């Protein structure tokens, strides 16, 4: 079966769109982390700077999986590994 490169490019675009759905997970995770940090600051306002830096560190690590999805989308759209 023969596919022309426009068809493959279109399918790559759909795949890129699907790959970016990976952003849902980090969004939920970062929201939970921020919510708990807000609760912690409310309970103990003196530890605000410690809580904030810990929260940002955890969020940045949690962000990684979403960024992997972004990378896959970028590769599909701009490097075009599947287009002959």
């Amino acid at each position, binding site marked *: 079966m023969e596919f022309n490169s*426009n068809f493959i*490019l279109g399918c790559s*675009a759909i795949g890129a769109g699907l790959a970016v759905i990976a952003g849902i997970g980090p969004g939920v995770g970062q929201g939970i982390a921020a919510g708990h940090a807000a609760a912690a600051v409310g309970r103990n306002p003196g530890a605000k700077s410690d809580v904030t*830096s810990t929260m*940002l*560190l955890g969020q*940045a*690590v949690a*962000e*990684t999986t979403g*960024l*992997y999805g*972004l*990378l896959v989308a*970028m590769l599909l*759209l*701009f490097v*075009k590994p599947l287009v002959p």
Partner: protein
Amino acid sequence: MGAGILLSGADDIDFMIHGVFQYELFGQKLWITTTHVCLFIVMAIIIIFCLCANRAVKRATEIPGAFQNVVELVVEMLDSMIKGVMGKNATAFANYIGTLFIFILISNISGLMGLRAPTADYGVTFALGLITFTLITFNKFKYQKVSGVIKGLCDTWPNWAPINVIGDVAVPISLSLRLFANVLSGTVMMALLYGLLGFIATGWPAALHVYFDLFSGAIQTYVFCMLTMTYINNAIEG
């Protein structure tokens, strides 16, 4: 360039790495790219700052002047950050972590000055990840000895050794990909903004620059250094 973006009418979107100069080495075609150029500009900025700092510290006065104050502030901040995570191991690694922090920070911020951030090239961040990996492995063998390393590999059950090896190898890859993807996403966003909305992009993109270049760059620098310190500390203490 993807056809999808070309269809929407803007063909001046540009965030790729370009070759500047081609040369041949051992029969391989190699390129000096825009990343190298930006990297050298960043390095020149850091070296000039360091030379000035060296002069200022050599002629240090009891009541510090403005520049000496800045230098002392930077050094004290880095020292306290490193001491907070690594404790008694801090002195041995303060140099490396400090260098790493300043280099990555200036690289990320260089997007503000119109350069293409060097850390948006996987070649740069992967090299940083590999240096960290080398340090982790070296310190593991130095402090835990071979028996300790084998014991760590056969954690809980000897047959899990391959999985533990994969876990060790994944460290530099995830470290470097995290930094790379964050900076790249900022670069792509700004390129899309200027390419597609160029006709109304006056003034307000500054706010996005503050987020993508300054905030995101500083956070990722902090995270990279923090994780490097944590991994090295784990390797030393077993």
